[in-house]
């Protein structure tokens, strides 16, 4: 009986998906296809997908958003400049400990309630207090406690930092600290769920550029433009009246859809399709190397035989980088191999990653392997996850072939994604390929999050006192030159230890109708539809 009743309720909930007036013309609608699903409307919920993050920036506003810069002629987000979003302006105190935001007075939530400092306070408190994803992220910008957030007046808001932190502002521009309509949210909160996690997961209470019109997880999400939103670049609402995001699991089908003009934009096509579409020249293909990402071959530095530095270097000298890059990515990306470092020192320290001086040299590889005590090689397994099979499979085949030449016998293991994450977390994989992304791609952020400590993201299980020390020091180093000097030492040390072999930064291939303009590569590797317009 209860099953039936529940079923009835659910059916009623789902019944109202009919699109009302289709007055908008096709030109004012943007149809986006993607392979993945949006699984929550609140980006803070553990388990949120990237597509859910993408959506949240359309339905919610933050205090700030990242600026943009051109990198090799392509627009990408800029970690160092900010655009006000709900904030009209902000000031940082000279000691760097206090940030004061002036809020827009005309900003309203979707239900018409004005946005106030109270809402900001509630939202940021939630991000650092509740059991949400924001907590872990914001502490990388020294934002850890509600005490740091103060309402000065209805439209003034103050953030206090224990130490000047270069990433504090940047952290306020990521997806977690979006501003909720606190009155609405609080009305949905319960004693067990004071932060209305459950309600916000399936409802929005934002002030963003788009309003959710229909949401079918794993199928379609339709967004309607919020006509009152004016936080965009030209102080006017977003260009498209309607955004349709559809989940199309088969990549080849997505390519067909875009090519036929049935879809306007896709960013997760296979490299081969993107290359093909670019060659055909009918569509606009914007390929941006993901400059905040790395694809690498990683060793478990604690697990024999990869605890031997010579073994790691031998493998680095044996990999057929060019072939791998061509076969896996069709050359679509920025290589991180084949550099020449003048004196064995990293040429720069201001950024990470930088191209590494590795190249294929089998003689050297064999020599190193012998030095490591494995003149006849050894056997190991190389793992990658099913989700990345498209690029990882050819890469692994080449790797296996190349390592066989220096006597290392490799078994290739293709693991379902969940299994791979578990094994990585338990540090049980000796040798594998993965990709990492940093939302806030500063040099120290990479080192701190991916090469230190017993955390999941320390793929190589690197445990090096110097890297730890220098990375922590760099975090709070205000002086750019000193920061770069630390970075140079870190980069050099990192290469010497060779905990992983960085391979490349794959391109994000945004394939879109020629009429679509304004695409910017964003930190969360999603499309910010507010940037887009049609010619």
């Amino acid at each position: 009986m209860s099953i039936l009743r529940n079923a009835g309720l659910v059916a009623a909930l789902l019944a109202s998906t009919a699109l009302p007036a289709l007055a908008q013309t096709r030109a004012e609608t943007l149809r986006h296809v993607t392979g993945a699903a949006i699984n929550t409307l609140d980006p803070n919920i553990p388990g949120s997908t990237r597509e859910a993050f993408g959506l949240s920036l359309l339905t919610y506003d933050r205090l700030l958003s990242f600026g943009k810069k051109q990198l090799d002629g392509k627009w990408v987000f800029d970690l160092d400049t900010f655009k006000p979003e709900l904030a009209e302006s902000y000031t940082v105190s000279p000691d760097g400990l206090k940030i004061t935001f002036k809020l827009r007075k005309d900003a309203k939530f979707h239900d018409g309630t004005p946005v106030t400092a109270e809402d900001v306070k509630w939202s940021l408190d939630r991000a650092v207090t509740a059991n949400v994803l924001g907590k872990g992220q914001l502490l990388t910008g020294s934002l850890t406690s509600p005490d740091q957030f103060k309402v000065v007046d209805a439209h003034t808001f103050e953030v206090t930092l224990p130490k000047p932190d270069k990433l504090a502002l940047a952290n306020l521009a990521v997806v977690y600290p979006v501003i909720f309509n606190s009155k609405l949210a609080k009305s949905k909160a319960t004693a067990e769920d004071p932060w209305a996690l459950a309600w916000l997961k399936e409802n929005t209470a934002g002030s963003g550029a788009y309003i959710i019109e229909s949401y079918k997880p794993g199928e379609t999400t339709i967004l309607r433009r919020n006509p009152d939103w004016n936080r965009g670049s030209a102080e006017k609402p977003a260009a498209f009246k309607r955004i349709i995001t559809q989940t199309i699991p088969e990549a080849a089908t997505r390519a067909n859809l875009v090519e036929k003009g049935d879809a306007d934009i896709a960013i997760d096509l296979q490299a081969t399709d993107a290359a093909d579409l670019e060659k055909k020249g009918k569509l606009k293909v914007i390929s941006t190397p993901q400059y905040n990402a790395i694809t690498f071959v990683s060793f478990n530095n604690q697990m024999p035989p990869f605890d031997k530095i010579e073994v790691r270097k031998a493998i680095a000298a044996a990999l057929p980088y060019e072939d791998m890059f061509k076969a896996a990515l069709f050359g679509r990306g920025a290589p991180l191999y084949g550099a020449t470092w003048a004196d064995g020192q990293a040429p720069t320290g201001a950024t990470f990653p930088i191209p590494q001086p590795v190249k294929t040299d089998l003689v050297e590889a064999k020599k190193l392997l012998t030095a490591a005590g494995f003149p006849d090689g050894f056997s190991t397994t190389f793992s990658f996850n099913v989700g990345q099979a498209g690029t990882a499979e050819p890469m692994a085949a080449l790797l296996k072939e190349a390592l066989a030449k220096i006597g290392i016998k490799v078994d290739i293991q293709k693991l379902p994604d969940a299994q791979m994450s578990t094994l990585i977390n338990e540090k049980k994989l000796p040798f594998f390929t993965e990709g990492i992304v940093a939302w806030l791609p500063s040099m120290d952020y990479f080192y701190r999050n991916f090469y230190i400590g017993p955390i999941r993201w320390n793929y190589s299980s690197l445990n090096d006192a110097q890297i730890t020390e220098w990375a922590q020091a760099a975090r709070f180093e205000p002086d750019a030159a000193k920061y770069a000097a630390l970075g140079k030492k870190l980069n050099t040390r990192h290469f010497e230890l060779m905990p992983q072999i960085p391979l490349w930064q794959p391109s994000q291939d945004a394939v879109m109708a020629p009429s679509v303009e304004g695409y910017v590569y964003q930190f969360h590797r999603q499309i910010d539809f507010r940037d887009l317009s049609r010619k």
Partner: protein
Amino acid sequence: MTSSTLRHTVWILRGNPVTAIAAAGAFILCLLAIIGPWIVPFDPIASDVANALQPPSAKYWAGTDQLGRDVFSRLIVATRLDLAIAASAVSLSFVLGAVVGALCGYTGGRLDRYVGRFVDVLMAFPLFVLAMAMVAALGNRVENIVIATAIINLPFYIRFARAEVNVRRNAGWVEAARASGDSHVSVVLRFLLPNVLPAMAVQVSLNLGWAILNAAGLSFIGLGVSAPTPEWGIMVAEGARFISTGKWWLVAFPGLALMLTVLCFNLLGDGLRDILDPRMRT
């Protein structure tokens, strides 16, 4: 096989060219599985990225793949693995299913009820998802693909053997065997099983093709054999990625190989049925 059975077989094959062709095809496949690695023009594993994604030509009869490997050579070499997977999966479920099914069919009673329940449970599963889950749980290695395929096949064999034995359990020769001093077990193993095996052989042949497809399906969703081992299912799955860019040979040739093999075994199964049970056809 007695000479008269042989003569009968020849007679059937002559009157049934389709089966003859299928039998020849199956023979060629087995031959390829054995000698394949020695006759292929290229190393099926060795990459040659410079020659990646070449369309079929005089040099590369079926074109090259993403890593510049010769698709034709890979197809030939894959025969062994594909046939091995299918054959071992099917024979595993065949042997288990025949013995268990025969015992159930003969004794009836409690064993039959318990096994029947077990079979019910298995049958109620969405079988492909069950295979997926098992491969995911056990790890996607060849032996696990074989086990998963065997398990999802098992109910059919149990039921088949059970039914076949059940109709014969009251046959005069079964009672005669018991009157001649055979125990129940010996009646099942020495009398009933040999008699139901031919009918089951038909099932095996039909099932071989299905097992190959099943393995291919698992490959398609990423739970198949690992690269770079050549295997048709993986080749089709990989090739499917290139359909939209018109690199048809990557999917067409492995698809064709898969198709012809399955077709071969299906037609052979049909033909076997004719040979064993002439009443089914003229």
